[in-house]
């Protein structure tokens, strides 16, 4: 009997079209656009000027405040200008625009493929180095990793959970990374364990990736403290709280962080980035992006430099299909549609999914028939139909009392609703408004 989380969950069609395409390296573009807020928290402060020469790995923006992350140049060349560039939502954000010249790397970066397993650093050194390398959670939430690794006073981490679930349909970036960089991920896990000072780690992988599970199991005996946990396929298992519940059967209390029950969750992509930062001195300048879709000629997994315009990725997989109505940044369940192909790839871009017209269209919204399907699928045990009504009627106190802040925005309720009601849209509205009210109360 395979493990999984207990409450709710849905089973969207997997459509992992690119699961068998090895990671390919995308050509370096002519110009990159590197936004300064690719992470959760305060935007980084730009430290280069127009005309400056940069190399691959040069620090171009420094973190401001505790919850923030450094940003490095992903290419070598000249800073063309610092300007506002539309981000995935279409709003302008500050970005460094670099004209690419050659591919010259900072000399301290080790570019060989040699596996380095020795970890001669202390916990503080590791966290310091991760912070310097600008690593953020690569699962999509882009929370700065060094903050997650710094355990607050009075708390103790007991287990590190590595998230190899990739429960979003279509996406295969983590899957391919697990197959091709298995050793590196395991060493990255060891580094993270040392940083957290824990003796146990578990890598959770859904059962729809048997090849990755097999690959890990074949070499796991070299890493005695790490356990491989195959999981039953169910969305949203990749969500932090659901994954903890599935693996160690503990529930994170409402409004609290996983560290409350001694768990820290990191994505496999993050583990790989940590390996590269610590053992190879390489800051976070590229990531794996799945570019896929039913009508896409060649669904692929691409290693892409941060700041590459999305149109380059689309071009590589055979161009935009004729029936490419909606382009989603991220997975189809939680990702957001973009309205320009000039938008750059950022640290949080896990996939680009092209959805055909027929599937992209939203059906007409009907009345709620009180079937309670949304209640039964909510992995957080909330009542989405009620929270949506609160959002519509602007009943913020009631929304707060009914724990709207616990919503993880997985979209299972909107997915299952037979009346096609925009549940998540209104719950998000409630969440942002209630969040503002709570923050203003603290002031």
């Amino acid at each position, binding site marked *: 009997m395979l493990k999984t989380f207990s409450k709710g969950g849905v089973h969207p069609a997997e459509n992992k079209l690119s699961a068998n395409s090895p990671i390919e390296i995308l050509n370096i573009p002519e110009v990159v656009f590197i936004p300064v807020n690719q992470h959760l928290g305060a935007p980084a402060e730009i430290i280069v000027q127009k005309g400056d020469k940069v190399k691959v790995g040069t620090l171009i923006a420094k973190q401001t405040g505790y919850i923030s992350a450094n940003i490095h140049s992903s290419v070598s060349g000249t800073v063309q200008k610092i300007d506002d560039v539309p981000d995935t939502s279409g709003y302008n954000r500050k970005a460094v625009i670099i004209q690419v010249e050659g591919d010259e790397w900072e000399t301290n970066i080790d570019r060989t493929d040699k596996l380095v397993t020795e970890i001669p650093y202390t916990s503080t050194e590791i966290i310091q180095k991760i912070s310097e390398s600008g690593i953020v959670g690569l699962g999509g939430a882009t929370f700065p990793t060094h903050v997650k690794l710094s355990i607050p006073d009075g708390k103790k981490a007991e287990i590190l959970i590595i998230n190899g679930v990739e429960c979003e349909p279509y996406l295969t970036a983590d899957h391919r990374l697990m197959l091709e960089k298995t050793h590196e991920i395991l060493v990255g896990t060891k580094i993270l364990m040392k940083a957290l000072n824990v003796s146990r780690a578990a890598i959770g992988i859904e059962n729809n990736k048997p090849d990755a599970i097999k690959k890990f199991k074949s070499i796991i005996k070299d890493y005695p403290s790490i356990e491989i946990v195959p999981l039953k396929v169910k969305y949203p298992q990749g969500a932090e709280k659901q994954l903890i519940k599935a693996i160690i059967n503990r529930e994170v209390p409402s409004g609290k962080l996983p560290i409350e029950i001694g768990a820290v969750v990191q994505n496999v992509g993050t583990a790989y980035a940590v390996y590269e930062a610590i053992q190879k001195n390489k800051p976070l300048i590229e990531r794996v992006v799945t570019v896929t879709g039913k009508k896409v000629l060649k669904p692929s997994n691409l290693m892409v430099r941060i700041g590459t315009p999305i149109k380059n990725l689309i071009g590589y997989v055979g161009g935009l299909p004729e029936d490419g109505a909606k382009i989603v940044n991220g997975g189809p369940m939680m990702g957001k*549609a973009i309205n320009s192909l000039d938008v750059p790839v950022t640290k949080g871009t896990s996939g680009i999914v092209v959805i055909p017209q027929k599937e992209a269209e939203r059906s007409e919204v009907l009345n709620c028939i009180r079937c309670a399907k949304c209640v039964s699928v909510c992995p957080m045990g909330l009542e989405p139909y009620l929270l949506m009504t609160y959002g519509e009627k602007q009943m913020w106190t009631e929304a707060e009392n009914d724990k709207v802040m616990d919503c993880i925005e997985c979209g299972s309720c909107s997915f299952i609703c037979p009346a096609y009601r*925009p549940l998540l849209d209104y719950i998000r509205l409630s969440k*942002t408004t209630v969040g503002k009210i709570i923050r203003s109360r603290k002031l």
Partner: protein
Amino acid sequence: MISVLIFSALTLVLLGVIAAIMLYFAAKKFKVYEDPRIDQVEALLAGANCGGCGFPGCRGFAEALVKADKIEDMNCPPAGNDTMKKIAELLGHTVKVSDPMIAVVRCNGTPANRPETSIYQGASNCKIKHSLYRGETECSYGCLGEGDCVAACKFDAIYMDPSTRLPVIIEEKCVACGACVKACPRSIIEMRKKGPKSRRIYVSCVNCDKGAVAKKACSVACISCGKCVKVCPHDAITIENNLAYIDFNKCKLCRKCVEECPTNAIVELNFPPRKKAEESESAVEKN
């Protein structure tokens, strides 16, 4: 038989007397004095509970008026100046005569002026749309057209024009309560002075992008060229964040800026048609 009836009647009378005495003392003990003027003031107010005064409902405002030492800065927009004067007389205060205000929609991004580049099918709510993305057009400041302002208006003074996809304020109905101003996530609606004979001049754009970017998104955007600032004889126009703004307290409605604006971003309302200007314009067109 008779004695039973008398006994019951007497018992009831006795109970009644005891209860009356208790109630009499209770009423004395727990008496709450309420200023009778609160009721009088409330009767004078508009009774719309619109929140335009900033207090919770008309009763709340009436209480605040009676309690206040000075009521000069307090105003009930739907009731107007005459009512405020009456209230002031009743309470023995003075009031400032405040200019009548009206809501103004500062966006002219009709589908013709502002071409659409994407399709939105999400929830029909401006706040949700605003938090998701910049909207169907290239302009990330303009009207989203989902009608949060219409839903907020308690006086049915706003409707969405299906051809322009912009909200329209019905001047006769608008009481300047400000509910729509608060409802708009992009702060497009502003309370401006109604002006003599409802004549108003304002910049019908809130786009803070640089000129070229704004113009590309919308043909009637303010491109912050500064021509209006130069031409204004009353120093009423300022440019901040790439956007011109006309101070309605300084504007003397001379309409020079309207003629000068190269993108027609400055709008005049309820003015009689201009004879000379129209002739010369048509002459230019002929040439």
